[in-house]
Structures are given as structure tokens and as C-alpha cells.
């Protein structure tokens, strides 16, 4: 067997790691078989982006983070993601690979809601996790990166909402890669049982400009019949972190999965966001905004695949590209045979702020059913001079006018994020990255 890139972590290491975490046997076995697969499976091949030389294997796998007793102990750059006015009752902060802080509203606990780090979930709710973990949404053996993820998963959370439970307040998770070389291989598993609803928002943060590492994030969202999951994320890894992010949803009958993803990484990034509308009348709204700068290379895929009748999918991708950055935006609306009366809509727009930047919007509709509706709009261009003229004609400076237009362009995701602090943070990140 040829191994193109050898992993610095072997069977023995993984067995020990798994035992050290007191993981159930099934998890250890999954890890070991995934490790084996990772040696033979190819890397994924995102359209028009060559990732064969990207760093997916050099990093520190297990770095603990100090626990904190109170949120006051957090440095300001992390505290900024928390609402000050309204104390967050449902919050997990992961620092490197261990939990620094975790709280959940007692009322939710009493209702059977589980919101905890994935390690604890594996120990305390092994059967429940096993039922969903890399089964319905993402499969371990899709390609080398999913296999690596399964083999080396070292963080993440499990959020479980029982039948008929409606969670009003947003649930928040912060994944803080404090150590510059720590690799966040987070698994986020969200299961919303029948007729439940939940709003979840997460941040991935690091500050490693120079030191190299890699993040491999897999998210699985399962929305059972009639459930509603609103999923918000702001990814904000620094330039040293190469990112693979795979966020996938499975929506059953009458369920809704909403995605609002702020893709603000500074390093090379491959991100795919796929939703399978399995059930009749299921619905997904997938919104992504991204900024590229420097020499950053990014590839974003948003895919909604319709299986259920009368399913409704809407994809929005807005990207701002500056300097010599390049990004590919693939929007895929796929309607399978039998998914009659479905509707697949998508909009991909890229705003170019520099002539050296590259941005591609590739809208793709794949339709294998007659009785459906579908539409797409795509554009790549500069800030509209007529819009600038209009704003400037009210005395607003060119700089400020451009600022307003760019913030407006990225607003669809900003506005949808549930926690005010996260919204404010995303606005600030946008401000910092664009200017």
C-alpha cells in the first residue's frame, strides 16, 4: 500500500488516546478502522481548487486547556464573543482539546436536553451518540479527510433535543484553539427529535498567524419530523490553520434546517455545507458569507439535495475577495427523481475589491424530476458605481459608501446570527478583513 503522507499518529497512539478518554469500544474501533482507511482513501477533490499540497496532517493532536471558574478569566478576544448584557445560560467553551467552561440551564436539563462536550457525551450517552455519529449525514470513509477526522476526533459537542422540546434561548459553543499548533478535530453532533426546535451558534477561533496547524471540523445536524434547527457559525481561524469544514444536515418530514455561516478564516479553507432534504415538505435555507484576503485560497460548496416531495431549498453565497485571494463558490441544487413539487433556488454573488483577486461563482442545478421549480442567479463583479454615486450624492464619502455596501452585501448571515455578541463580532471581523 502506498502512503502519500504518513500520519504522525499510529494505531497504538489512537488506541491509547481512546482508552485515555474512557471512550466506548465502538468509538475505538471506529477510530482504528478509520485510520486504516485514511491511508488508502484519496483526498476530496473540490472543484477548481487543488488541495493536494495543503497541510492536513501536521499538528499537535492532544493539547489540554486550563479550566476556568468564571468567564472573567477569559482573555478579552474570547470574552468578546459572549453577550455581556445577557448571561449565556447554555454555553460550552472548549480550550484546545478540553472543556474550559460548560453550563446548561437546569430547566433544559430537566427536559432531557443534552448539551455537553463530545467526550462526556461518549462516556455518558454512548448509545445515543453511536446511533447518529457518522451514520446518517457524514460517512467515515468518504475520503481521506473524513477518515482522518474519524480516526483523530479530539473535540466537539453533542446537542440533543428531545421530542416536543422547544428551546427559546440560543445554545452557544466556542472552540478556542489557544495553542498555535493544536489541531481542532471537532465533531459537532446536533440531534433534534420530532417537533423540537433549537438555535445553536458556534465560533471557531485561533490566533496562530505563523505556526502551522490544521483543523478538521465535521458537523452533523439531524432534524427529525417537524423539527427546526437554526445553525449559526462564525469560523475565524488565523492564517496558520488550514481548514477542512464539513457541515451536513439531514432533514426529515416537515422539518427545517437553517444555516448561517460566516466563513472568516484567514488560512486556506475547504468548506462544504450539504443538506439532504429527505422528508416530504422539508426545508433548508443555507446562507454563507465569506471574505478572502492576502493569498488565501478557499473553496466553498453549498449543496441542497431534494429527496422528499414538496421540499424547498434556498442557497445564498456572498463572497468578498481582495488582494490576491481566490475563492470558488459552488452552489448545487439537486432534485432527485420522485421529489416532485420541490423548489431549488440559489444565489451566488462575489464582490471583487481587487483586480488580482479571483472569484468564481458556479451555480449548478441537477434535476431528475419534471414537476419542480428551480432558479439561480450568479454574479461576479465590482462595487456598483451607480450605488456608490447614490450614497455619495447624500454626502457620504466614497470609503464609507463602499463600507456600507460591503456590510450590506454580507448582512444576510450577520442578521441571522442569534447571539448579539456573535453578530457584533462578525461585523468587526468583516471590518478588519475588508479594511
Amino acid at each position: 500500500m502506498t502512503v502519500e503522507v504518513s500520519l504522525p499518529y499510529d494505531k497504538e497512539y489512537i488506541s491509547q488516546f481512546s482508552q485515555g478518554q474512557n471512550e466506548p469500544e465502538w468509538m475505538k474501533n471506529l477510530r482504528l478502522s478509520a485510520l486504516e482507511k485514511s491511508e488508502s482513501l484519496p483526498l476530496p477533490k473540490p472543484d477548481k481548487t487543488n488541495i493536494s499540497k495543503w497541510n492536513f496532517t501536521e499538528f499537535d493532536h492532544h493539547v489540554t486547556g486550563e479550566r476556568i471558574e468564571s468567564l472573567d478569566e477569559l482573555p478579552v478576544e474570547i470574552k468578546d464573543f459572549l453577550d455581556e448584557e445577557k448571561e449565556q445560560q447554555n454555553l460550552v467553551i472548549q480550550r484546545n482539546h478540553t472543556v474550559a467552561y460548560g453550563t446548561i440551564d437546569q430547566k433544559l436539563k430537566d427536559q432531557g436536553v443534552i448539551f455537553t462536550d463530545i467526550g462526556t457525551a461518549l462516556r455518558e450517552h454512548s448509545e445515543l451518540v453511536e446511533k447518529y455519529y457518522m451514520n446518517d449525514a457524514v460517512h467515515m470513509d468518504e475520503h481521506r479527510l473524513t477518515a482522518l477526522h474519524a480516526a483523530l476526533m479530539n473535540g466537539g459537542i453533542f446537542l440533543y433535543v428531545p421530542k416536543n422540546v422547544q428551546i427559546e434561548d440560543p445554545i452557544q459553543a466556542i472552540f478556542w484553539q489557544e495553542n498555535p499548533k493544536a489541531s481542532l478535530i471537532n465533531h459537532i453532533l446536533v440531534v433534534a427529535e420530532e417537533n423540537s426546535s433549537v438555535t445553536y451558534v458556534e465560533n471557531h477561533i485561533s490566533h496562530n498567524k505563523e505556526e502551522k496547524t490544521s483543523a478538521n471540523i465535521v458537523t452533523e445536524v439531524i432534524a427529525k419530523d417537524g423539527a427546526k434547527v437554526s445553525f449559526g457559525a462564525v469560523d475565524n481561524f488565523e492564517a496558520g490553520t488550514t481548514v477542512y469544514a464539513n457541515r451536513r444536515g439531514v432533514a426529515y418530514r416537515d422539518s427545517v434546517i437553517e444555516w448561517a455561516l460566516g466563513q472568516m478564516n484567514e488560512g486556506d479553507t475547504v468548506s462544504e455545507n450539504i443538506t439532504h432534504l429527505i422528508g416530504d415538505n422539508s426545508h433548508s435555507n443555507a446562507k454563507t458569507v465569506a471574505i478572502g484576503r492576502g493569498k488565501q485560497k478557499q473553496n466553498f460548496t453549498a449543496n441542497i439535495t431534494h429527496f422528499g416531495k414538496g421540499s424547498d431549498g434556498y442557497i445564498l453565497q456572498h463572497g468578498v475577495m481582495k488582494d490576491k485571494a481566490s475563492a470558488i463558490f459552488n452552489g448545487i441544487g439537486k432534485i432527485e427523481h420522485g421529489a416532485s413539487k420541490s423548489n431549488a433556488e440559489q444565489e451566488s454573488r462575489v464582490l471583487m475589491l481587487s483586480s488580482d483577486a479571483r472569484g468564481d461563482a458556479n451555480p449548478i442545478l441537477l434535476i431528475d424530476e419534471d414537476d419542480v421549480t428551480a432558479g439561480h442567479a450568479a454574479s461576479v463583479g465590482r462595487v456598483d458605481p451607480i450605488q456608490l454615486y447614490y450614497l455619495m450624492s447624500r454626502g457620504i464619502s466614497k470609503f464609507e459608501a463602499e463600507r456600507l455596501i460591503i456590510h450590506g452585501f454580507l448582512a444576510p448571515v450577520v442578521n441571522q446570527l442569534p447571539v448579539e455578541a456573535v453578530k457584533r463580532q462578525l461585523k468587526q471581523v468583516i471590518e478588519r478583513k475588508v479594511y
Partner: protein
Amino acid sequence: MAGSTLEIKDLHVEIEGQEILKGVNLTINGGEFHAVMGPNGTGKSTLASAIMGHPKYEVTKGEVLLDGENVLEMEVDERAQAGLFLAMQYPSEISGVTNSDFLRSSVNAHREEGDEISLMKFIKEMDAKMDTLDMDKNMAQRYLNEGFSGGEKKRNEILQLMMIQPAIAILDEIDSGLDIDALKVVAKGINEMRNDAFGCLIITHYQRLLNYITPDKVHVMMQGRVVKSGGPELSQRLEAEGYDWIKQELGIEDETVNA
């Protein structure tokens, strides 16, 4: 004389190499309302756009002076800050920017740094002006002009006019597409602006608007020039008799700029 003076001198303007304005002369003083009338295609909107600095229009000759300062040498935002305002015929739609945020930025752009309008005062003024214009309050939180009906866009232009309080305003076909009730409301807003200092240039091809806003002077444009000027009675005669008598009087066969 109170207020500012806008002087347009021998203004020639091209768009994509075609000359549209062929020597326009006009002077608007503070306190005066002027109407520029004329059939379609005679250069009225070009005049408005060129004064404000629309990127597609190129001034090839002439001057536009605001209190003696050459406006044509200024950037668009500087023209606005100097006191000019244009209510546009086709205002841009800007997604993601709320009407209210935009308005506040506009108002603050006319104030010194450090002297920005307080949020409370701003909201109070905006609410009062929206009442005058019979506008739904939720329009403040909608994205700028996005999905606005034609009438809503026009009201929104006048709302901006009332909030910014410029020295000289140009209203480009502010009446087009308005029903009679909306027209009255828009006219009410404009009339509320009237004072000794405020000068206004109203571009229209209908006399209708001028039933509600009485101009001090009326000018008729044909072939890219002002061909006739007079008092309010001129617009009434145009309403009654159309433009043919002017064409005959001046020996004009085709009034458009292509002639």
C-alpha cells in the same frame, strides 16, 4: 439675498460620446423654486445628473458654480456636503443597508466630526418627517429602496431631502408614477422645505405637480438647451396647449437632443 446661489453656465454634457446638453444657462437663488419642463428626450434629467456628478456623464464645457465655487471640480460627496441635493428618478436599491442607517450616515455626513446627531434626536426627526410623508414606520428598517414601490421610492427621496436640509435641491421627475394622493403628499413635503434660504429646481414634464408646488420661474428645455423662461403662467399655458406653440415660435421641428 439669503441662501445659496447655483449658477449653470453654458453647460455642455456628453454621454458615451453623444452630446446631450448643448449650452444650458440657469441661475437658482436661495428662496426660489424653479421648474424645468420639456418633453421627453430634451436633456432635463441629464442636467440633474451632470450637476450631481453621475459617473456616466461627461461635462465637456461650461461651469456649475455654487456660491462661486466650481462644483464640477468636486467629488460627488463634496458636492452634497457643499449643499447640493438630487432627488433621483431611479434611486439605487442597496441590499443589507437599512434605510435608517443610511439616512443617519447621510445626516452625519453633513455635520462636523464629533457633532453627530444623537440617535434619539435622529429618530424623533425621522418619525416626524415620515408622518408628514404618510410613510409606514417600518420603512425605516427596510433595506434601502429594496422592494420599494415606485411611490415609496419617491417618498423616500423626499424624506432624505427633508432630513438633510440642503441649500439647493434638484428634484428629477419626482412626480412620475405617483397617483394623485401620493403626489399631494410629496408636494406637502417639498412645500414644507420652502423658506428664504432654500432653492429648488423641479424637473418634470407634467404641469400636474406644479398645481401643488407653485414655481417662481418656469423654464422649457428643448434640444439640450433652455429655450424659453417665464413665470408660473408659462407652465399653465403648457398644460393647456402643449409644447407645439413653442416649437413653432422657435422654428423647432424635432425637440429632442438627437435633432
